[in-house]
């Protein structure tokens, strides 16, 4: 009996280790590639190579740092606007059931819209406003999916706050607005943090909008990375370093956001 349980455990462990290896291998291989010379990159099976920092140095002296900064600016502005606009609206949806089911459905639909459906008019709009090749164009396009997503997240978190909390605050002399931002908002801080972090990651990761709306002056990191492997040539080592720069921080951030993600994604539909 005991030996059978041990055997089952061993098999489970084996399967999970295999899955883990499949997940981790691309990360490690790319990390390794970022320290290889071009000659070593051409011999993938040869483990005997001298590591070099040349790729990282070249990458750090290219356009990439500027693009990282662009990505941070776009992500920060998008998330800040999303929280400022989304939190009050989510509170309204949750506490007053404003707009009923239709409004919640609209928020869900908005975040699911395919970028291809919005890119043509957004491109023409930015062209008309002379905002092509600026970070504002990217922020506007990222608001199309991050603002509904943040709102959707927060509806779920507001739904979990008992109404008694703000009723008590209003008995104590707060107006409804004061009860909202002094009492209710602080209680959903983990939700705000998770929505902000997840929203930032989505902005940081976007290629489609950024590719079409930016130019030489405003490229974000994903656009920069995509530029390493073109029909003109490949800079595999530098590309690997840039990829590690793009995914490393996100992998670490994911450990903090994972536990709140399910509540957030369930959002405004879970409580009826």
């Amino acid at each position, binding site marked *: 009996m005991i030996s059978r349980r041990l055997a089952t455990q061993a098999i489970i462990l084996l399967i999970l280790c295999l899955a883990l290896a499949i997940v981790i291998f691309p990360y490690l291989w790319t990390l390794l590639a970022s320290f290889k010379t071009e000659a070593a990159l051409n011999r993938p099976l040869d483990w005997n190579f001298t590591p070099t920092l040349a790729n990282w140095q070249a990458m750090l002296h290219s356009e990439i740092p500027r693009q990282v900064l662009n990505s941070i600016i776009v992500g920060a502005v998008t998330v800040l606007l999303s929280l400022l606009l989304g939190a009050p609206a989510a509170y*309204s949806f949750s506490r007053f059931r404003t707009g009923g089911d239709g409004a919640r459905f609209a928020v869900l*639909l908005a975040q699911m819209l395919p970028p*291809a459906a*919005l890119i043509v*008019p957004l491109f023409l709009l930015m062209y008309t406003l002379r905002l092509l090749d600026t970070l504002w164009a990217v922020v506007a396009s990222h608001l199309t999916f991050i603002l509904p997503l943040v709102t959707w997240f927060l509806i779920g978190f507001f739904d979990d706050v008992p109404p008694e909390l703000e009723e008590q605050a209003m008995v104590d002399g707060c107006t409804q607005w004061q009860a909202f931002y002094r009492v209710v908002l602080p209680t959903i801080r983990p939700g705000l943090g998770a929505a902000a972090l997840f929203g930032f990651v989505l902005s940081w990761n976007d290629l489609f909008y950024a590719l079409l709306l930016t130019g030489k002056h405003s490229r974000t990191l994903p656009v920069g990375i995509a530029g390493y492997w073109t029909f003109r040539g490949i800079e595999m080592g530098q590309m690997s370093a840039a990829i590690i720069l793009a*995914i490393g921080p996100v992998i670490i951030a994911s450990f903090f956001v994972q536990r709140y993600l*399910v509540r957030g994604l369930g959002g405004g539909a879970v409580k009826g």
Partner: protein
Amino acid sequence: MHPLLHLKYRLLAPLVLVLGAVIGYPLAFSLWVSLHNYTLTAIGQAKLVGAANYLGLLANPSYWRAIGNTVTFVLVAVGLELILGFGLALLLHHRATPLRHLFRSLLLTPMFITPIAVGLMFRFLLNSQLGIIPQALKALGIHVDWFGSRLALFSLALIDVWQWTPFMLLLLLAGLEALPTEPFEAARVDGASGWNMVRYVTLPLMRPVILAAVVIRMLDAFKVYEYVYAITRGGPGESTETIQYHIYRVGFLYFRMGEAAAMAYTLIIVVLILVIILFYVLRRSAT
């Protein structure tokens, strides 16, 4: 006080205004563009053509090819993701599994990273000259051309499976953890165990969560673009041309924006249907 000045509307107004500007206006404008002969090279000369752009799609083999590729991609990718995600969720849900929280945290990481990086990492790993995987297989005497015309779409689906099985795992594991314990105890008393328990107790109870997870993944997989852009650019031939990539190509490489907008609207209808199903499932599982 005027009823429209009630706090609930004032809290909402900024959101409505901004979403109206970045989504409402583009959607309306896009509809207008889709009814015109609108090309980026001659914006001033857009002519009303009615439903011609839409009717043109019916006879457009590239459009149907892209739809077919996308549907194949979605079914293969989401199907595999469901099977693998459910299996892993069962293993990680098992109390006796050692280090389950560590496994969980690490196995979930791919869903957070940028798809263009995922595409390029796999282009590198699977490249026939530089890639470790084809080279290792070659050493074993196996020759696979991952991005040749036969396998390319399937390879892209496998990359999607690598990145998005974690999402399936996340939702299904949360679903398993939220299940009531009584049905399992009752089934155990009746002598059920192992596979029967999964088949007759877990699966029926998990149906709403599975359905929601599958629909969300389908919605996302329909938008596949980055892997195509990173690796195949629609080729060889049109074998990996997906709908979002096709719209990008027609609108921004050929500048035929009226046609692109019409295609985008057909995509919106698919998304609308899926979101209606999703909303219904989420609401029903809540009550």
